[in-house]
């Protein structure tokens, strides 16, 4: 399935970045968006996603027959970075592009790929990730949502929580029990594609401490899932989820969530800034450079078909700790009070970043769990 494609030259990547930047500057000037922190989860804008799709900037590294552009993974990485740094509203298509696309490319049926991938790449079809439950957080293998075989498919029953944008998405990838857990509890799990508008699916947005609602509770009361919506093989859900998590944990959104704040802060600082300000900028940049290299190394490994779970966990742990630290470091020297909706850009960006700060080390696996993954890998060296 992997096509031999030439890695883009520095010049080509530079030209692509310039194109994305020019588009973003124009969209910003036209009032299409206001840059914000954490925009990959808080900035939901279908119109914007469709525009990116039209430009070929979603799923760019996927095969052309599935709506992609057959381009190198580095191009997708560059586009993603530019969008995040600009604080652009990319949440609508985010999860589908990041996780569902690669999942279907690895495990989906030909019919599933043909149906969903072009729509995802077009910025038209959004997926939610239905893994966590009220009693299955870090201990994901303990999920209890079950799928009962019925004529032509399954009936699913259970409750999912913290599902990002379930209330604004078309489909969800549902992790559920299709068989007994076995000795190691990892057996009998499967992934199904669930139509979020099917009868028996009830979605209730959950309000966050900031007042926004970007995740939901999803209650499944015997909703029907047709046979052909099984992803991969039955009972293989656990190992499929593990390889999905490497995509989920190693991307640039794990250290660029506060980039709009950082860039605004540097802009305001100017060349004659105080020594503490300069030092803070230097500390921010030194860490950014480092994480970028670590994350890109994993992106290359993923593109080559590997699933470096421990290295991805490590990047997420370091990256999200950096995000939390960055907010505090800037707050300490910026000399402004964080205030939501303030006309002062730094004040309002700080307010957004502070509200999002506790979430970054939870979502996608908590820091403690990630370190457990790393420690197990160290022990097996």
């Amino acid at each position, binding site marked *: 399935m992997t096509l031999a494609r030439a890695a883009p030259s520095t010049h080509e990547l530079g030209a692509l970045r310039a194109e994305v930047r020019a588009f973003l500057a124009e969209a910003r000037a036209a009032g299409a968006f206001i840059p914000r922190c954490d925009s990959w989860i808080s900035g939901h804008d279908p119109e914007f996603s469709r525009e990116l799709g039209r430009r070929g900037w979603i799923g760019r590294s996927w095969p052309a027959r599935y709506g992609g552009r057959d381009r190198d993974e580095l191009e997708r990485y560059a586009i993603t970075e530019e969008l995040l740094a600009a604080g652009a509203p990319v949440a609508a298509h985010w999860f589908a592009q990041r996780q569902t696309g690669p999942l279907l490319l690895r495990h989906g049926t030909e019919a599933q790929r043909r149906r969903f991938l072009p729509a995802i790449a077009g910025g038209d079809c959004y997926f939610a990730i239905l893994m966590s439950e009220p009693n299955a957080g870090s201990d994901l293998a303990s999920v209890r949502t079950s799928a009962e075989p019925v004529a032509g498919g399954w009936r699913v029953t259970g409750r999912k929580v913290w599902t990002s944008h379930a209330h604004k998405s078309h489909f969800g990838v549902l992790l559920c029990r299709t068989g007994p857990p076995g000795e190691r509890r990892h057996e009998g799990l499967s992934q199904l594609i669930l139509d979020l508008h099917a009868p028996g699916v009830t979605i209730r947005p959950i309000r966050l401490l900031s007042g926004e609602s970007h995740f939901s509770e999803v209650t499944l009361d015997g909703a029907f899932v047709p046979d052909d919506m099984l992803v991969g093989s039955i009972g293989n859900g656990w190992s499929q989820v593990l390889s999905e998590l490497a995509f989920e944990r190693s991307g640039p959104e794990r250290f660029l969530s506060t980039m709009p704040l950082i860039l605004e802060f540097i802009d305001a600082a100017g060349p004659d800034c105080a020594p503490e300000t300069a030092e803070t900028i230097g500390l921010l940049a030194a860490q950014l*450079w480092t994480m970028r290299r670590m994350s890109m190394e994993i992106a290359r490994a993923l593109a080559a078909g590997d699933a470096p779970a421990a290295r991805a966990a490590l990047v997420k742990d*370091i990256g999200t700790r950096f995000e939390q630290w960055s907010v505090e470091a800037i707050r300490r020297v910026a000399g402004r009070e964080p205030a939501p909706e303030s006309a002062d850009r730094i004040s309002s960006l700080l307010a957004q970043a502070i509200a999002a700060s506790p979430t970054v080390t939870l979502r996608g696996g908590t820091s403690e769990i990630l370190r457990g993954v790393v420690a197990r890998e160290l022990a097996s060296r």
Partner: protein
Amino acid sequence: MGSDPIADTALLEQLARDVLERSCGAEVVASSESAWPEELWRALDTTGLTRVGVSEARGGAGGGWAEAAAILRTAARYAAPVPLAETSVLAGWALDEAAVELPGGPLTVARGDLRVERRRDGWILSGRADRVPWARESSWIVMFVDRRDTCLVAAVPSDRPRIVRSLNLAREPRDTVICDEIDLRDLPVAELESPTGLVSRGALVRAIQMSGALDRVLELTVEYASVRRQFGRAIAEFQAVQQELALLAGEAAAARAAADEAVSAVAAVTGTPSTRAAHTRREEVAAAKVRTGIAAYEGARIAHQLHGAIGITFEHQLHHFTSRLLSWREEYGNERRWATELGRLLAAMGGEGTWRRLVTAGDPVAP
């Protein structure tokens, strides 16, 4: 190796590993304060490992930053107590730039309160430089005399200045060199374009070394946690210990990435001496020194915590690595110094400019 061009950094690393495994055991490191490890030096010197990064035309072994980094990182994994970096990519580089043939024996570099005066037909060197690595053991010392926009380098046999012994935290020699009207007339003297080159290169060297030492510290700590038993099991089975091990692995990986990033950035600069002088990749080097410096402290702290009391004894080899980490983060500018400089460079570029600079790290720079 002799005059063969260096083809493969992995092979070079293997060669360094073999030599160090044979000649740089823990006992060599432990006794290095009282006895210069002549045998180790000779083993490194005869294989050409002391001269990688210096052009063959000047008596070096060839190769660039990537090759030199592979060797320096490996040497740091063994805490090799010899001026390997000083001889090759610091003194060797300056002599290479100045078109001076490399003298034999260990070399070092001195910079500080040094000045030159023109007298009749030549220069006279006076002043002092502190914290000169292994001045007492080197055959020649390359003196860096800062001038307005350039830098004068002079190679001086080490018996000409007065040398006062001093140490760093790791008890490596960091001597004071006092020059009392040294006549430079018959000695190699040249003018370099970049007065700040040495500090940048020194910072990169120490960053590379820190990444190597951290790799070793991680290895030692993972190993120890798997054999040390308390409460009837290996301490690595306790979750609190696992969390710390993972943090240590993260710091080691970050240090490695930071150093690699700077090495590839610097190695991507090719062309004439003046293109090279104009593109010192100071931002990436600064970032590497800052990030490895942070990792040095965190890594050393966790390693000692997990080793318990045995780890703070002289007997145990852990301190050879941790005390080097804590010394190297200070040398050629600590985290604050480099973060402030990096911050100023970026602040002058503004937000957009900074972003552009961040994502073009390591792009090639040609003549």
